[in-house]
C-alpha cells in the first residue's frame, strides 16, 4: 500500500494493460496530451502547422480536408492549429486544480481523520457543506465573482474540488489509525506531527493518486465549460471551450468549428478516465493477491 513501485507492480500493470487494451489507449492519449502541452510551452506557436492567429477571410469556413484536417473557422484560421496551441491552457488549469486541491485536501483530511473527535466532526461538517452545492454551478458562481482570467478559473475550481480529496484522505487516515504502524509510533512516543508526516500521509497517497488521475479528466471538462461561458482564458488566447462557444453560431453551416474542439475535449477526458480506471485496478487490493 505504500507508494513504492516494485517489480510486482510493474508486472501487474503490464498484465492489466494487456488484458484491457482501452487502458493502453488511455495512457497514449494522456501522454499525447501532456506531451503536446509541454511542447507548445517550449516551442510556442511554431509547433502548429499554421499560424493560429493568421486571419485570412478568403479561406474562411473550409470544411475538414487534407490541408486543414479540422477545417478553418470564421476568420480563416486553421482550427487544428488553434486546438494544438490551446492545449497548455487546459493542461495548466487541470494540473493546477488537481495538484493544489489534492494537497490541501489531503492535509486537511489526514489531520482531521487522524485527530478524530471534535475536530474531525467540525472539519467534516465543513466538507459536507461544500459538497451540498452542485459543484459546476458553484465553480461558475465563484468564477463570475472573481472575474475573467485563467488564475481566477483555477481558484474558483479549487473551492469546489478540495472536499473530495479531504474525504478520501480522511477515510485513509481513519483506517490507518487502527494499523500497527501508527500504534507502534504512538507507543514509541512520536509526536503527533511526526506520525502524520511519516505514516499517515505517505500511505494516503495511492488512492489519491488514482483518483487524481481520473479527476484530471473532470478538471479539463470543468475548465472547458467555464471558458465556454466566457470565464477563463480571454481572446486572443485560443481555448477549447471558448472555441466551441464561438463556433456555435455557425453550427448549421460550419459544424467543424465548434464540434471538433469539443470532440478533442471528450477524447482527452476519456483518456484520463481510462488511465485512472486502469490505475485503480493496479492499486486495488483484491487484484494484488
Amino acid at each position, binding site marked *: 500500500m505504500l507508494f513504492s513501485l516494485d517489480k510486482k507492480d510493474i508486472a501487474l500493470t503490464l498484465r492489466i494493460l494487456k488484458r484491457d487494451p482501452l487502458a493502453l489507449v488511455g495512457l497514449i492519449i494522456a501522454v499525447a496530451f501532456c506531451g503536446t502541452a509541454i511542447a507548445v510551452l517550449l516551442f510556442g506557436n511554431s509547433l502548429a502547422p499554421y499560424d493560429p492567429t493568421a486571419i485570412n477571410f478568403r479561406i474562411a469556413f473550409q470544411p475538414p480536408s487534407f490541408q486543414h484536417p479540422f477545417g478553418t473557422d470564421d476568420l480563416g484560421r486553421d482550427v487544428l492549429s488553434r486546438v494544438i496551441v490551446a492545449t497548455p491552457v487546459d493542461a495548466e488549469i487541470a494540473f493546477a486544480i488537481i495538484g493544489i486541491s489534492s494537497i490541501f485536501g489531503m492535509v486537511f483530511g489526514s489531520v482531521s481523520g487522524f485527530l478524530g473527535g471534535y475536530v474531525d466532526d467540525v472539519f467534516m461538517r465543513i466538507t459536507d457543506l461544500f459538497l451540498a452545492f*452542485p459543484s459546476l454551478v458553484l465553480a461558475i458562481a465563484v468564477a463570475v465573482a472573481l472575474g475573467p482570467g485563467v488564475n481566477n478559473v483555477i481558484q474558483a475550481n479549487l473551492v469546489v474540488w478540495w472536499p473530495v480529496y479531504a474525504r478520501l484522505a480522511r477515510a485513509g487516515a481513519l483506517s490507518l489509525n487502527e494499523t500497527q504502524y501508527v500504534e507502534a509510533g504512538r507507543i514509541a512516543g512520536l509526536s503527533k506531527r511526526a506520525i502524520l508526516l511519516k505514516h499517515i500521509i505517505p500511505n494516503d497517497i495511492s488512492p489519491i493518486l488514482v483518483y487524481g488521475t481520473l479527476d484530471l479528466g473532470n478538471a479539463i471538462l470543468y475548465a*472547458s465549460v467555464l471558458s465556454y461561458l466566457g470565464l477563463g482564458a480571454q481572446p486572443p488566447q485560443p481555448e477549447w471551450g471558448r472555441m466551441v462557444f464561438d463556433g456555435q453560431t455557425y453550427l448549421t453551416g460550419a459544424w467543424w468549428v465548434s464540434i471538433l474542439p469539443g470532440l478533442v475535449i471528450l477524447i482527452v477526458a476519456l483518456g484520463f478516465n481510462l488511465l485512472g480506471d486502469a490505475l485503480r485496478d493496479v492499486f486495488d487490493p483484491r487484484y494484488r493477491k
Partner: protein
Amino acid sequence: MGRFVVKRALFTAAVLFGVALVTFIIFRVAIPDPARVWAGPRASQQTLDALTVRYHLSGPVYLQFYYYLLGLLQGDWGVSPISGQPIFQSIVQYFPATLELTTAALILTLILGVPLGVIAATHRNKPADHTARVISLTGVASPPFLLALVLQFAFVFYLRMVPDSGGRISIFVKPPSQITGFLTIDSLLAGNWPAFLSALQHLVLPAFALAFLTLGLMSRLVRASMLEALVSDYVRTAKAKGLRRAVVVYKHALRNALAQPVTALAISVAYLLGGSVVVENIFSWPGIGRYAAQAALNFDFPAIMGTTIVFAVCVVVMNLVADILLCVIDPRIRLR
C-alpha cells in the same frame, strides 16, 4: 421510520442554513461594495444611500447576515444589474421549465441506465458489457455542450426531424393553461394533443443530452452492484432452491443491487443541474440553467448567486429524498 425522517429533515435545515452562510461569505468577499454594483456605475449618491439603508449594508457583519437570511426567506433576492429584473421572481418564473427538463432526464437515466447496467453485469466481459462500458465512459467524459450541439446539428439541421424553433413548444401551437407547469402533463390533462406532441418533441433532445452523463454513471453503478449481488450468499441460496435464472437475477440480485443506485440519483441531480446551464442555453430552453448561463456570460453576479442558491437547495432536498427512498427499500435501515 417517522423519527428518522424528522431527524433527517432537521439536518437538512441545518445544511440549508450553511448554504446561506457560504453564499453570504462569497457575496461579501466578491463584492465589497454591493450598493454600487447593484445601482450601476452612474447612480447618484442618493440612490446609493437608499440602497445602503434598504439592504442594511452599513451595519456589523452578523446583522448583515441576519438581513440577508431574512431576505432569502422572504423572496427578496435583489435585482439583477444587467436585466433590471428582480432575481427571485425571475427564478420562480423559469423554475418549472428546468424542473420538467430535469425530471425527463432523470426518467431517461433510469429507463436507459438501469437495463444497460443489468445487461453489462449478466453478460460480463462479453461484447455487450464492453459496449455498455464504452457508452458510459463516453457519457462521463463528454463536455455537456458536445452532445447537445451534435444532437442539435444532427436532428434539427441535418435530418430535420425536430423543429428548429428553440424553446419548449412550437410557436404555432396553442399552449395549455398552466396547472403543474409541466407542458407535457398540462397538455395531456387538457386533452390538447398537438400541444403535447410539440412539447414532447422539444423535450426529447435536451433531456437526452442532459441524461447522457448520468446514464453512464448509473449503468456503471448498477453493473458493479449487480456483480456483487450475483456472487452473494443469498443468490447462491436462491439458486440452490432451484429457482429459475430469471427469478434469481431480477427478484433477488437486482432488488438488492438497486439500493446503491437510488442514492446515486441524488448525486445525479447535482450533475443534471450543472449540465442544464449549458444544455438549456444551447436549446434555448427557458429555464434556470439558461438564466444562469446568460448571467455568467454577462458577469451578472447577483443573478448567478441566486441560481446557485436555488440549485443548492434542490440538491439538498434531493439528498433527503434519496435517504428516505433508501429507508423504504432496505428494511435493515428502518431499525436505526
